[in-house]
């Protein structure tokens, strides 16, 4: 693995290697001293063209716990809004000696351009690009699911070596604009899970029928029919209501009634089903407080796992998978 640009690029073996390495990293995080020396002397640049405090802090924490030096480059206002071009920013970072670039960008494909245009020679990690991909989010979601759904027995609590074969995952919300949904569909399919997307038809992309998943417009029927092991609620941006053509749905209340995870739907879920959300949440819109705060909610755990997943990704990209054993 040279870069991490898309969850679709990961083979089953690569994905499991990352999840297993994540388990190793997570285990170190309950120690008193959380810091590992693995990336000492290396510099990781967080190049964020889009506001995202949580993801940036998560990557920053991950890099620092591996003893890397971290440079945060907040370049809000890219060439899209007539600032410095992505190319010049990349050349500047390369000249300053970055060893890896973590990039968040509002333009789909920007990490791909950065990795393939010759502007930088370092590994590139996609921390979310436009409506395209957010692979570390999918990995942390998969890690969280594996822990809850495939953990136990000889594989240990983290389900080491296992995939998600047969797990039934329902993803609800704004699939059209969601890089989280795209990444999750790709990775969960690779890991053998059965995914169902649920959304109003306006929030599904044309072409979704070719994705390796089922699609439904009816959340109640899906909960009843699929009996999910995990349900993931996607963030719905309120401004989607007021965009061109009168918006994608008539009102937040109607959205919430038809697609929100309220108390009734929460109660209808199988007992073991975990409730997930990539954050930040709109409480009362796509998810009720009751669901978000319920014991089956993994939302806070997802954040913790995010740091471990990003540690694993940076470690595998910069220190190389072959050294995994030695560093333990």
């Amino acid at each position, binding site marked *: 693995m040279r870069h991490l640009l898309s969850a*679709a690029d990961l083979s089953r073996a690569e994905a499991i290697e990352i999840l297993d390495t994540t388990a190793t990293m997570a285990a170190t995080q309950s120690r008193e001293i959380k810091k590992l020396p693995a990336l000492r002397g290396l510099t990781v640049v967080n190049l964020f063209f889009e506001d995202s405090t949580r993801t940036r802090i998560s990557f920053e924490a991950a890099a620092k716990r591996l003893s890397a030096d971290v440079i945060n480059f907040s370049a809000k206002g*890219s*060439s*899209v809004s007539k600032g410095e*071009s*992505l*190319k010049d920013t990349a050349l500047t970072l390369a000249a300053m000696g970055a060893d890896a670039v973590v990039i968040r*960008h*509002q*333009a*789909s*494909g*920007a990490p*791909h*351009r950065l990795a*393939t*245009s010759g502007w930088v020679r370092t590994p590139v990690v996609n921390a979310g*690009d*436009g*409506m*395209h*991909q957010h692979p570390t989010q999918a990995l942390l979601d998969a890690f969280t699911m594996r822990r809850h759904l495939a953990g136990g027995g000889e594989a240990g609590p983290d389900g080491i070596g296992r995939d998600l074969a047969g797990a039934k995952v329902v993803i609800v919300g704004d699939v059209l604009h969601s*890089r989280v949904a*795209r990444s999750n569909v790709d990775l969960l399919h690779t890991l053998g899970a059965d995914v169902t997307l649920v959304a109003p038809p306006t929030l599904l*992309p*044309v*072409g*979704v029928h*070719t*994705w390796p998943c089922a699609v439904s417009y009816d959340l109640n029927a899906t909960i009843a029919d699929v009996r999910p092991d995990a349900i993931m609620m996607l963030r719905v941006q309120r401004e989607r209501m007021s965009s*061109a*053509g009168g918006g994608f749905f008539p009102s937040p209340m109607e959205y919430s009634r038809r697609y929100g995870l309220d108390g009734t739907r929460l109660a209808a879920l199988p007992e073991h089903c975990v409730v997930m959300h990539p954050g930040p949440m709109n409480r009362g819109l796509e998810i009720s407080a009751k669901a978000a705060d319920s014991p089956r909610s993994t939302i806070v755990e997802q954040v913790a796992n995010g740091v471990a997943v990003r540690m694993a990704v940076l470690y595998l990209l910069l220190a190389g998978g072959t050294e995994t054993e030695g560093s333990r």
Partner: protein
Amino acid sequence: MTTYLIRAASVLGGERSDLYLADGVIAALGADAADAATTARADGVDVVEIDASTLIALPGLVDLHTHLREPGREDAETVASGTRAAAVGGFTCVHAMANTDPVADTAGVVEQVWRLGEDAGWAQVRPVGAVTVGLRGEQLAELGAMADSAAAVRVFSDDGKCVDDPVLMRRALEYVKAFDGVVAQHAQEPRLTQGALMHEGVVSAELGLTGWPAVAEEAIVARDVLLAEHVGSRVHICHLSTAGSVDIVRWAKARGIDVTAEVTPHHLILTDEAVRGYDPQFKVNPPLRTAADVAAVRAGLADGTIDIVATDHAPHPDEDKDCEFAAAAMGMTGLETALSVVVAAMVDNPEYDFDWADVARTMSTTPAAIGRVAEQGRPLEVGEPANLVLVDPDATWTVDPAALRTASENTPFASDELPARVIATFWRGRATVLDGEPRARTDVRA
């Protein structure tokens, strides 16, 4: 003045004949050509003899859709650099689109562009006039003044923007009848394509790029053929790109509506799959469509539903392409690759019955007729203007963006090997290209 004796060229890919070019016209054909050249030589006239025994002679190509960028974006292209590229591509006439800065919406601007073309001396420049003031889609530009100017504008287009107001489009279609003009519509429903970056479909869904749905083109094509029927005008559809548009135009023609349509070379050969690498060289408007659309536009061109090939040559400087896909400019150059791409997609393609006479029809005769360019697209006969091109059908060449003559390097065909090569181009009897190399007017004099 230098005269040319072209030996044994295959005329439109058919029988071989000598041609003698003198005084700006085809002075003699067949056995008479050599005799005429001998006589001229005896009179002290300079005769250059060209062995065309492996070449095909076509009437000079006519492009109905060229962005020359001057005035305003001389960093991307000038009238001189663009027409030189045109000559190398086998063109003797180009229609310069109106979306310059200032916009070609007055007699002053169109005359300036026309004059720059005459001065450059590479090919005939026929300015296209804007339909509306500033391409803003609010008020008709002074179409009559542009028609009556020295530039004698006959094609009007807001290309780059759609004349989406149906009332304004109706008025424009009606108004240009007074001087036998035509409105060339950039068919793009603006509200359906806000922020659109590529064809909306399977690939855009995966890449997370905002989609440009086929229906946004087809809805306007359908509306405009019906408007043209209602007011009894002719209408031309720019860069038609979808299978649905082909069906609508086919239906309209069967109904007797006076509609013509063009397809670009790139829509004949590239699909939205090319966008997967997020390379902005494949960002173009209308966007690259699906393989099914490519098959439909090829079939439409072969059966005459689509009348012509037009390049939509759209040069951009490097900085407008060397960036994120979303930030990049739309468009690709095409003048120097157009003929080769048409040969690859159509002539050399056994699926279609499309020969060199069809190339002449779709890239010279019909575009000249649509643009009402009397002296272009003429048959290769005695007394006709000496606008012609000699093509080596068996040559292949590799596209090197830096080596192309256009001032910009944004070709989608970089490093591709293409068939057929322009060897010589003659405009008004003068060689603008010889041995594949452009020759300026001053070179010939020297």
